């Protein structure tokens, strides 16, 4: 789950990290008032679940409330990589002496958690990784013992931080690690972590992604969800236990299993089509799940044809067929449909569908070929 900068900052602060605290605003008037309150030059930052907001014009500095108001007018409503700006964070502008990148993430290869630091703070870290990977320093934390103080200090020495500032940096590194662990995060980032005017460390940007699997033990995080940032159908799908990701194509997919879903999308593409979504109905593929999945897929007005691809493993093909028929009782289908149904009792299942006038195909390739043709015809 993605959360906003101001939300991540609040979590970081609760772990003792010095942050550049600001005020969240939803209108230029609020921005002007916030700037007035802060009584100094401010930085206005778009709050969207996306990187690259600086380049997109989502971050502006203003000297006074009026300048802040007009700057924010240019930020509100901006489209940053598909995310519309509804909120901004107004924070005091600070005098930056040096900028560091600091990030904690799940490290699949190490089967653990890695903390990374780079002296190229304030820059997108992918750029540093691509152009100067030697500038990124890493420490893998022991999953059972956590990040050792010596590792946090070692990062500081690797970055060439002067001795008087080493302990302060190490403290922030450990606090960020603790925030990551205690929040069940999959990413926690401060970019930049800056040495500011008075020589102290301050987090000037905060980013955090929460592991969805850990949310059950952080009930308080539910309120961090921003409905404006999520596709309505994705929220609806999650509530039904369906994995759904909206894409830009015109062929809706209803599949059981994530791997098979991806393979189905790949097959559609292979035959020259464009999938409208990734959709995994989950285990069981029950009648109600399939009905819900169809509903979600059909709510996308770009969809011109639908491919249902079910491999009946434990679930029997006749059950799936009955489920589909039930679903069609409540859903009025106005686009062509291709059904592929294989696995346990596939024969019985196909017969049931045939009686209802729904033809099924044998192979995934055939199904993909047909649905692509149907979508083109409908276009």
């Amino acid at each position, binding site marked *: 789950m993605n959360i906003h900068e101001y939300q991540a900052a609040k979590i970081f602060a609760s772990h003792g990290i010095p942050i550049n605290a600001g005020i969240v605003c939803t209108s230029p008037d609020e921005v002007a008032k916030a700037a007035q309150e802060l009584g100094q030059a401010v930085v206005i930052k778009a709050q969207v679940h996306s990187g690259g907001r600086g380049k997109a014009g989502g971050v502006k500095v203003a000297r006074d409330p009026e300048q802040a108001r007009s700057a924010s007018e240019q930020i509100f409503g901006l489209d940053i990589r598909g995310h519309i700006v509804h909120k901004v964070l107004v924070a005091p502008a600070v005098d930056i002496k040096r900028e560091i990148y600091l990030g904690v993430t799940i490290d699949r290869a190490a089967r653990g958690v890695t903390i990374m630091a780079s002296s190229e703070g304030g820059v997108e870290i992918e750029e540093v990784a691509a152009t100067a990977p030697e500038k990124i320093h890493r420490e893998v934390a022991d999953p059972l013992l956590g990040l050792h103080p010596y590792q946090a200090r070692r990062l500081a020495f690797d970055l060439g931080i002067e001795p008087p500032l080493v302990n302060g940096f190490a403290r922030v590194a450990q606090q960020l690690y603790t925030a990551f662990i205690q929040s*069940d995060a999959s990413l926690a980032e401060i970019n930049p972590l800056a040495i500011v005017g008075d020589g102290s460390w301050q987090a000037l940007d905060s980013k955090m992604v929460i592991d969805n699997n850990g949310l059950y033990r952080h009930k308080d995080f539910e309120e961090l969800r921003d409905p404006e940032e999520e596709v309505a159908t994705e929220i609806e799908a999650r509530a039904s236990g369906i994995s759904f990701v909206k894409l830009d194509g015109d062929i809706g997919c209803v599949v059981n*299993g994530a791997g098979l879903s991806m393979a189905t999308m790949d097959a559609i593409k*292979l035959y020259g089509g464009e999938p409208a979504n990734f959709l995994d109905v989950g285990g069981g593929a029950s009648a109600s799940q399939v009905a819900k999945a169809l509903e979600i897929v059909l709510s996308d007005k770009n969809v011109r044809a639908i491919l249902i691809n079910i491999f009946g*493993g434990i679930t029997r093909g006749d059950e799936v067929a009955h489920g589909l028929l039930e679903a069609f009782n409540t859903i009025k289908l106005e686009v062509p449909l291709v059904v592929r149904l294989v696995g346990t009792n596939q024969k019985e299942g196909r017969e049931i569908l045939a009686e209802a006038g729904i033809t099924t195909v044998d192979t995934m*390739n055939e199904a993909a070929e047909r649905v692509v043709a149907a979508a083109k015809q409908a276009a």
Partner: protein
Amino acid sequence: MSILVNSETRLIVQGITGREGSFHTGQMVEYGTKVVGGVTPGGAGKEVHGVPVFNTVRDAVAATRANTSIIYVPAPFAPDAIYEAVDAGIPLVICITENIPTLEMTKVYQHVKQSSSRLIGPNCPGLITPGEAKVGIMPGFINKPGGPVGLVSRSGTLTYEVVNALTEAGLGQTTAVGIGGDPIIGTSFVDVLELFQNDAATEAIVMIGEIGGTDEEVAAQYIAEHVTKPVVGFIAGRTAPPGKQMGHAGAIISGGRGTAAEKMTALTAAGVQVADRPAQVAELMAAVLN
């Protein structure tokens, strides 16, 4: 021959009285798997599909000499179930449970690594040695016993798809292993490839990967260096949009790797024949074995 499970497998089911555990115990018993016991705290004395239930894994092992355990308990309790099985000294532990928090798995992984047990999963469909033992949730009827193909996969239904295609092409399987799709899993491609390489009955190997992580790349390197048997591969997710799952740092950790194209290139470079579609796996395998 086969790997990991066979007719000598003596299985206990943790969470046997739950909905999933009870249903799949029935399926496994029906297939012929030797399910010798089940564990549900407070369930001692009950029976599920004729299988006796115990309060603790320790009790179950003492009474049944179980050598394998399969876990069907909900995510919040699954790590504890894994610890219980591993600490009881069970050599092979399979965890079907999905949605376990990744940070819990980093701890579990570390503990299992330092034990003498092997963990498969979590979030995996289990494994099957056709005709001998079905351990997990894979549909047993699609398999064909006797080999010569060993299969290892990160995916569930996609595996069934490929197994089905192999069987329809007349190619039997030694063992099919679903290692699970989570970021942190107990047994990796490399572990299973090593087992297949050392299994006399396995003449060729199918490996089914997915986008994300670098396990396929690591496997490709292992294949190039250690696997002499022919390998046919498939990678799902060639059209998946990037960046939908992991943020900045995740992408960096994997050194920019993790896409289907990169995985396919790595596998091809290692001498693996990579199929375009699942069904093609069977075609390539048939050609390889002739």
